[in-house]
């Protein structure tokens, strides 16, 4: 029997499936599994399938590590599964989906936030 965190949950055929994060890790140390679930399920319920991981804390090389099982994501999206916004952002950044508008927005807001401090430091 697979571990409940990595898949094997029972599900109904015609319910809405969604690819989304489930928070693993512990206090002050977020770590996310990218999973396929029925959308009405609780975050910590058994999942249908795990299709990736995401570590939001940058490592020593300043990288946020993501792993994706693109073959299975293709399969699930092709079978009509929805994708939550944060996962869609990740998929956009990795080139699987178009870049999500929220990524653009975050980028320009970050740029805008950075601009005055640079101006201050230069002046």
């Amino acid at each position: 029997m697979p571990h409940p965190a990595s898949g094997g949950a029972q599900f109904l055929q015609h319910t809405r499936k969604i690819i989304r994060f489930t928070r693993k890790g512990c206090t002050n140390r977020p770590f996310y599994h990218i999973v396929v679930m029925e959308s009405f399920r609780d975050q910590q319920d058994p999942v249908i399938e795990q299709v990736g991981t995401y570590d939001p804390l940058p490592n020593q090389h300043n990288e946020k590590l993501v792993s994706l099982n693109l073959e299975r994501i293709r399969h699930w999206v092709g079978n009509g599964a929805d994708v939550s916004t944060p996962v869609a952002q990740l998929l956009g950044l990795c080139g699987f989906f178009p870049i999500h508008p929220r990524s653009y927005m975050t980028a320009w807001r970050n740029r805008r936030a950075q601009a005055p401090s640079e101006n201050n430091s230069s002046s």
Partner: protein
Amino acid sequence: MLRQLQCSASVRFFLPPDIMNVVANPVCKQSVRWRRKPPGTPLAKSKLFRIPPRPQVPEEERIELFRLTTNYNTFIKSVREFLREEVQSAAGKEQLADAVSMDDDLIRCKEINDKWNAEVALIREKRLLHEKEEKLNLISKRLEERKIRERNRVAEINELVRMEKEKEKYYITSENIDEAIENALRGEVDYNFAIDVKGNIYKGEVAEENLEKKAVETV
């Protein structure tokens, strides 16, 4: 834990029982230690009348976001459609291949099965023959035994009849009944006697000195 239980209770309303088992089964649950306020706690007094500020999105940013979102939705729609077709065609191909391989498999299985059946039929024929022979033997043996039994029984009966015929001359019939009565009346039997270990009988009511010599009759 409380939160999970509440969730299970709300799910119970519309799920079939086999799924309920997974949801309610604590083995499949991974509890998360949230270290937060319990879910039932009311709004804090200090936050009771706080009105959170509405996000201020500049007009040009809003227009830009709208444009981007619309584009994104269009792209995503086409991507999803593409993936859907891909999955469906793959499933169709797989089904076809499955069907062909299933037929081949079936034919192969049937050949093997026929071969096994022929082998088993040979063995079975031999076994049935053997069993038939054994059964016939058993029946003939039983018949023989029965004959012997019958013969013995008839012999026993004949012996009984012969003995009865021998005894016949001592029977009391209507011809000799008077004589028999006379005999019975004449022949007195005295049962008032003693008997020792060797079977000697001592008649008379009083004990006498030399018993050995007085033995008159042995049983």
